[in-house]
């Protein structure tokens, strides 16, 4: 069997069995023992301290939890951390460059006031960073279709569309988050717990 048993004081009460998961997050390999019911989004937020990814609906509809899994945008609320064993996960924390230079999508969001509370924003940015990396000049329809995969309760979407249009109109060399760049900025990296 593929599972490995780990017994320590953190075993889940009913099942008594944690699973070791080993994956890369924002360019760094992490290995943790997790309860299989731990969602990937909660693993990122609570086990790794990467709280930029948000939990909205837990049904895959709102998009606030969107991250990249092996380079593709996915709903991290619809995966268990154990399923991500061996995967390469990228989160909002590495979209800006190592030196803090904002991604064109992020800059456009600020210029066009495309966020208010900001809860939906990281998810939208993850989807749009991926879109522009593969399609630097998407049509209005393509942008709207991609935005349709996200819910925003604050802005009414118009300023988000303005921001995205501005990026489409000024295609820059495709910028993808580069999780493998060595980062001095430790806030982008998974929190390293003390080893037991």
């Amino acid at each position, binding site marked *: 069997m593929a599972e490995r048993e780990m017994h320590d004081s953190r075993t889940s009460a009913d099942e008594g069995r944690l699973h070791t998961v080993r994956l890369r997050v924002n360019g760094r390999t992490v290995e943790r023992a997790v309860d299989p*019911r731990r969602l990937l989004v909660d693993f990122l937020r609570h086990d790794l301290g990467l709280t930029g990814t948000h939990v909205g609906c837990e049904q895959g509809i709102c998009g606030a939890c969107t991250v990249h899994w092996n380079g593709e945008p996915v709903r991290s609320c619809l995966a268990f951390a154990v399923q991500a064993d061996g995967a390469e996960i990228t989160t909002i924390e590495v979209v800006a460059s190592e030196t803090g230079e904002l991604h064109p999508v992020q800059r456009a969001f600020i210029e066009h006031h495309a966020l208010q509370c900001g809860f939906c924003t990281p998810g939208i940015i993850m989807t749009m960073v991926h879109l522009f990396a593969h399609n630097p000049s998407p049509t209005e329809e393509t942008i709207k279709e991609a935005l349709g995969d996200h819910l925003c309760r604050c802005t009414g979407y118009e300023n988000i569309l303005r921001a995205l249009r501005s990026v489409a109109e000024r295609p820059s060399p495709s910028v993808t988050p580069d999780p493998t760049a060595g980062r001095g900025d430790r806030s982008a990296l998974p929190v390293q717990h003390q080893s037991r």
Partner: protein
Amino acid sequence: MKPAPFRYFRPEHLEHVYELLDHYGYDAKLLAGGQSLIPAMNMRLMAPSVLVDLARVEGLTGLDCGDGFLEIGSMVRQQSLERNPSVAERWPLLAAAVKHVGHRQTRVRGTVGGSIAHADPAAELPAVMLALGARYEIGSSAGTRWVDHETFVVAEYTTDLAENEVLLRIRVPPMDPRAGWSFLEFRRKHGAFALVGCVALLQVSEGGTIADPRIVVFGGEPRARRLEEAEALLEGQKPSEAVLREVRSAVQEAWRPDPQPLVSAAYLQHVAGVLAERACREAVARARSRP
């Protein structure tokens, strides 16, 4: 909410999957892409005590059309189907339908087999598989068997799978390159579940009459089904406006959906008829435009 606790297994061979299902029976649930199962578990609408993850099982991810039939392993991700050039060229109806499944982000993880085995009445893939005449291979420790779609999908969220069985692959007959097809779906917003959808697949003969029409409506009935009343009106007929109007009326009469929140059954029936008419018109146009 968060899912209730469960034991998790990630076997690498079908034999091991069968052992687990034989041992745990009804307590075990297969985990495919998780895009339908995990939301249900997050809401605790489902709380299986055992999950058997199929992601690493050998032999379930093939996508092949070597013998003219399209063979789709049950664990093929919806996005793989969406991006496959052979599918786009030779099964355009399927390629069009899969773009409507969930959201782009859920299609990365969601699987073709998982969607069909989940058997949501409003799902796109079961409806298209019905129209295309797909057959399914099912496996267990007792061996394998093949069934057609109407045998496989029984009712809402209910399939012919016994508790120890696994959907292994889907086999789709070739689409006639001269066939006309259409896929239309009516829903509140992008990515939402279909309120009502219609699949049309037909041939147009040399003489301009319709042959082998398949009209599938899906949404508010327990499962997608072919509207034989509408098909009978089309068979052997020229697709005049009068005939298409009759198709609309026949579908409105014959399709009996449950009402949705804030949406009456009468409205859904009306839309079903309109979609059927439009889908037929579109299918005929496509058939005529083929070389």
